[in-house]
């Protein structure tokens, strides 16, 4: 069976290529090519939904090489849900960028297309080295994108992101090397079979290296510093993609590797739990003191990743469902918040909260969207954040009531800094002349769509819980091995 959503990878690579070609002729066509490529990929991802919805994963081999020797492309509910999520946010980013990015567009869109191609590759692969290669593809594209504005902050953020990011993927490569030395195979299902009998400390070492490498990509504390600078200095649509999708990709890779290859040992759960608690608290508490809007949102991204890690680290199936649901929700929320921040920065020409006070004439769509994002981030009922956080609170309550209390307190702090940002930007006293805000259509569409998705999932949470349950079903080692036909 052919997995349709895998064609998003060559679709985005072809988009990047065509963009460069088109830009040689006429530069103004470039955003249209990019949006077309994003729409085609969205189509491919949605086509795969009926293939995996009955709970049956699909696996196919590249070039018909049989399973342990060839590269496996694997799609189950977890992969396809993330693929659809990435497609939607990617389309929104392409649309938003068409008015935000004004110069050197061809390079921007080409790098962005390669970034998305890498993401789809990570989500669909069933082979650890293929995971490494696609992760590097998306990382290198992101190094270029963060440095895109070419001002001092962007260059500094990019070199920091580059050095720390490539340190992370080098650690991942070392872990993969260990795995190969232990098992003699790179195929995830094959490694899972061969590792189930081993118990040497070398397995622990390789898992530790892989966990650290992927944790750097996900943004768990103490690996979060690269993301803070990266989200602050990158062009805002790129920050949206990095915060919403790349962190999710890191978490997805951690979950896939931990559950399928190593059968999620107790120590891994503990590591995720404690690192998650620290991320959750540190992100929220430090976001209070930020005077830069984008840096505040970066800290909030770290905090949300902490929530997901805590929820998964609890070890219960309810926690896993809550964590996966929050992965999807957090992508939508962070995307919406960063796009709103993008509109604010575009019109006010600054991201400094001290200077943003009342800098914009009121625009209802922008202020409503930002408010929706803030309330959803804090987990206020009627928005999607509430449903996933409620499940996380319940799951934490079963294990340790102190954790649940801590999560609620962190959510309250989230509400505090979110409302602070909202009131400064949209209800603050004007310091000087207020700038007129006229959102172009290409900025309105992402805001409206993401806000609508947030409200829909918030009001109809059983859709999200159903999807999260399906996603959790994909993290079962035995069914994974069975599907890949070893």
């Amino acid at each position: 069976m052919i997995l349709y959503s895998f064609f998003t990878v060559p679709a985005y690579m072809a988009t990047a290529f065509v963009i460069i070609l088109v830009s040689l002729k006429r530069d103004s066509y470039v955003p249209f090519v990019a949006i077309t490529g994003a729409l085609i990929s969205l189509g491919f991802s949605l086509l795969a939904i009926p293939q995996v919805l009955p709970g049956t994963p699909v696996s196919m081999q590249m070039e018909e090489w049989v399973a342990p020797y060839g590269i496996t492309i694997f799609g189950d509910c977890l992969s396809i849900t993330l693929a659809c999520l990435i497609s939607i946010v990617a389309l929104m980013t392409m649309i938003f960028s068409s008015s935000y990015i004004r110069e050197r567009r061809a390079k921007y869109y080409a790098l962005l297309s390669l970034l998305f191609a890498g993401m789809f590759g990570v989500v669909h692969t069933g082979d650890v080295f293929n995971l490494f290669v696609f992760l590097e593809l998306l990382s290198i594209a992101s190094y270029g994108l963060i440095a895109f504005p070419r001002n001092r902050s962007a260059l500094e953020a990019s070199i920091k992101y580059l050095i720390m990011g490539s340190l992370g993927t080098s650690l991942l490569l070392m872990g993969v090397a260990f795995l190969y030395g232990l098992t003699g195979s790179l195929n995830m299902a094959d490694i899972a079979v061969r590792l189930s009998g081993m118990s040497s400390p070398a397995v622990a070492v390789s898992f530790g290296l892989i966990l650290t490498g992927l944790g750097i990509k996900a943004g768990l504390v103490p690996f979060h510093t690269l993301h803070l600078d990266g989200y602050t200095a990158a062009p805002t649509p790129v920050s949206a993609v990095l915060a919403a999708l790349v962190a999710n990709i890191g978490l997805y890779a951690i979950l896939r590797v931990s559950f399928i290859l190593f059968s999620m040992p107790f120590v891994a759960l503990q590591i995720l739990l404690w690192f998650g608690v620290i991320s959750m608290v540190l992100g929220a508490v430090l976001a209070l003191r930020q005077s830069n809007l984008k840096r505040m949102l970066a800290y909030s991204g770290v905090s949300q990743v902490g929530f997901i890690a805590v929820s998964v680290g609890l070890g219960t199936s309810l926690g896993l469902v809550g964590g996966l649901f929050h992965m999807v929700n957090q992508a939508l929320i962070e995307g919406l918040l960063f796009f709103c921040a993008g509109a604010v920065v575009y019109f006010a020409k600054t991201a400094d909260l001290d200077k943003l006070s009342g800098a914009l004439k009121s625009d209802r769509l922008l202020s409503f969207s930002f408010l929706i994002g803030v309330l959803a981030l804090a987990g206020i009922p009627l928005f999607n954040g509430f449903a996933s956080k409620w499940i996380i609170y319940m799951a934490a309550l079963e294990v340790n009531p102190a954790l649940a209390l801590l999560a609620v307190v962190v959510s309250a702090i989230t509400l505090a800094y979110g409302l602070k940002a909202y009131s400064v930007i949209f209800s603050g006293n004007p310091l000087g002349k207020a700038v007129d805000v006229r959102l172009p259509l290409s900025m309105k569409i992402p805001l409206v769509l993401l806000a609508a998705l947030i409200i829909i999932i918030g009001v109809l949470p059983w859709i999200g819980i159903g999807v999260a349950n399906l996603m959790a079903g994909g993290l079962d080692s035995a069914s994974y091995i069975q599907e890949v036909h070893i």
Partner: protein
Amino acid sequence: MMEELMAMQYLALALAAVIALLWIIFEASRREPKKPREKARIFACGTEATPGELNVPQGSYYQYMKRFFVTGPLARVHSGRLSTYIAWILAGLAVIMTAMVMMW
């Protein structure tokens, strides 16, 4: 699980309606007067108060938070020095490796 969630949703809906009503009233009353009228001078604490004094600047209101929460050392640690950040990554790696090898 589902029933609790639904009950919370309905409660939240009622609460949201009340809050929305209150907020509408609040916003309507907070509108700045277009022309300062002679008759409607505001007296507060026995003296005249201008609208500029009445609306607390929203941004600086939260500066007091910085003192209550123990965030100073945490913010200072994020100094921006790349070497420090890489050292943190290696420290995290050491913690993970120790935990892994000891509790496998």
